């Protein structure tokens, strides 16, 4: 199982734009599901601990960037007895090859999960061509 835990870091390098270091401090890569429907791409990202009003989404030149600020927690704690994850901001960039209509991108956030809807532009939608019979 050790392979699986490291895949997150290793298998994305090819198609992810290099992160811009415009934000200070360490950040974490959220796990995502990306799926395609006939009229849109849907991106779901796990950003537990993020606050609704501190999630920043940008779509520019075919690159989708998610930045979710996560406020510090556990401020009164002593040392960890056990630590399996770090707490910090989430950041991730994707290159989107589909033709997306940026003006109609919508986002919702609930229970630590960010859901983005990226509607395809009309031309990119599959169109059924009727074959006329003679």
């Amino acid at each position, binding site marked *: *199982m*050790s*392979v*699986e*835990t*490291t*895949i*997150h*870091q*290793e*298998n994305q390098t*090819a198609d992810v734009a290099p992160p811009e270091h415009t934000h200070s401090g360490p950040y974490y890569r959220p*796990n*995502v*599901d*990306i*799926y*395609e*429907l*006939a009229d849109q*791409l*849907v991106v*779901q990202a*796990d*950003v*537990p*601990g*993020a*606050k609704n009003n501190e999630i920043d989404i940008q779509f520019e030149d075919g690159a989708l960037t998610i930045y979710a600020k996560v406020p510090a*927690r*556990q401020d*009164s*704690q*002593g*040392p*960890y*007895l*056990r*630590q*399996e*994850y770090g*707490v910090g901001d989430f950041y991730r960039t994707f290159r989107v090859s589909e033709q997306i209509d940026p003006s109609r991108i919508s986002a919702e956030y609930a*229970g*630590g*999960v960010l859901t983005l809807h990226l509607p395809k532009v009309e031309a990119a939608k599959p169109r059924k061509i009727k074959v006329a019979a003679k």
Partner: protein
Amino acid sequence: MVLRGTVTVHPLQQLRDEVDRLFSNVLTHPTVSGAARLVAGRGFPAVNVWEDAESLFVEAEVPGLKAEDLDITVVGDELTIKGQRPEEPQTEAAFHRRERGVGAFTRVVRLTSEVDANKVHAQLNDGVLLLTLPKAEAAKPRKIQVKTE
């Protein structure tokens, strides 16, 4: 989890994972049941544990889960977090990436102090579960006054 492309694991990373896993086996007993696409390795959900004089605190990241999806029990020194990550009802969807796990999970965390199981408090905010487990009287640190004559 869907694997794409070639996976290269740095030897040091591998060693670190091995060590993590050793510790994980000693301290907790992660068991995964149901659908196999769960965040694997150390068990889901990942937990952080810390304490103060009064209580043990267990925090877990459970994005996408509602309070009613979680089943938390304390028996003796074992804390069990059970739940079910719902699958999106997208039958016709073509997945480009699939990293978020779905399905049933059970995570057992061995507690290092005796706790009062009746007073355990659980709170879920923005996908972060925080459990406060008050220590049993016997487990609290006691200050011993040294008398001088």
